[in-house]
């Protein structure tokens, strides 16, 4: 069987689960990454303090690709600034563009996201823009040089699931880049569903971070994502609109 490899920014990944590292103790990061089987993890860039608290990089297993995000950016200019600082921290060229000017729902600003994507792609970044699932914006992101498109399923941190399902499906069907569903996925079954729909990967943070047992939930997501991917690759069976259809022969009954 041909190996199912996920290509992103010229790099090969076997895992299709991108794990967030926020909202939980850094000491659990290693176990979560291992149980998730994740090969990519997101990080934020913030003002340093000198209190000597554990450096998160010490807790991330070797070989895991770091995906810094531009969280905190309110426009393209701020996102570019944060991205450049993250590259200076010496962890590669990947960046997840995240631009928000709404602090209640934390919805991404699609227009500024397109601008930042274009600027950063020109600077040689592998740009993964987080966006509200809109086909026109997704097309603009392709033209701007994005490496993938990251539509939200529901507001960040809400665990509400696939609220934008129909629109994510449109992106999967129409956009010729990996669609990585990010934000809002709260349960393994939802991660599985979106992989069955043809998403290239899933990113989750809060669903794991707010679970009762963090490493165990990371493992549950890994299995769900793998199952959904395999279901997608298998080609889902058809749905019969009306009536049923026997799956055993309709002959040779023990009667008459």
């Amino acid at each position: 069987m041909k190996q199912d490899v996920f290509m992103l920014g010229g790099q090969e990944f076997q895992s299709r689960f991108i794990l967030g590292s926020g909202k939980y103790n850094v000491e659990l990061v290693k176990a979560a990454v291992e149980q998730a089987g994740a090969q990519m993890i997101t990080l934020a860039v913030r003002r340093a303090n000198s209190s000597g608290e554990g450096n998160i990089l010490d807790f991330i297993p070797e070989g895991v690709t770091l995906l810094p995000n531009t969280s905190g950016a309110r426009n393209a200019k701020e996102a570019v600034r944060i991205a450049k600082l993250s590259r200076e921290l010496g962890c590669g060229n990947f960046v997840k563009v995240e631009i928000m000017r709404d602090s209640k729902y934390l919805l991404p600003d699609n227009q500024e996201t397109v601008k930042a994507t274009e600027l950063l792609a020109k600077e040689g970044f592998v740009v993964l823009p987080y966006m509200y699932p809109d086909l026109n914006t997704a097309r603009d992101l392709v033209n701007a040089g994005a490496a993938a498109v990251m539509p939200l399923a529901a507001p960040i941190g809400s665990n509400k699931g696939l609220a934008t399902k129909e629109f994510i499906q449109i992106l999967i069907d129409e956009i010729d880049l990996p669609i990585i569903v990010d934000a809002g996925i709260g349960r393994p079954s939802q991660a599985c569903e979106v992989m069955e729909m043809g998403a290239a990967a899933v990113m989750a943070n809060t669903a794991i971070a707010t679970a009762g047992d963090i490493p165990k939930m990371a493992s549950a997501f890994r299995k769900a994502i793998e199952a959904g991917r395999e279901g997608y690759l298998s080609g889902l069976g058809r749905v019969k609109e009306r009536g049923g259809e026997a799956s055993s022969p309709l002959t040779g009954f023990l009667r008459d």
Partner: protein
Amino acid sequence: MKINGVIKEYPSGLTVSQMLEREGFQKEQVAVELNEEIVSRDAYGTTVLKNADVIEVVYFMGGGSQ
């Protein structure tokens, strides 16, 4: 000068390298911005700070999103 939003009094002639030490930052874990321009690591020892400078010292921390 202003470091991460806080006004600090330092004698003139201080380099970025010395500032990081005095502030207790681990050089290999941070990135430095001076008046919105990145200071590359090899320039820490030769970049001299002035009184009116605005400096940001950042590092990675846990984060999925905002």
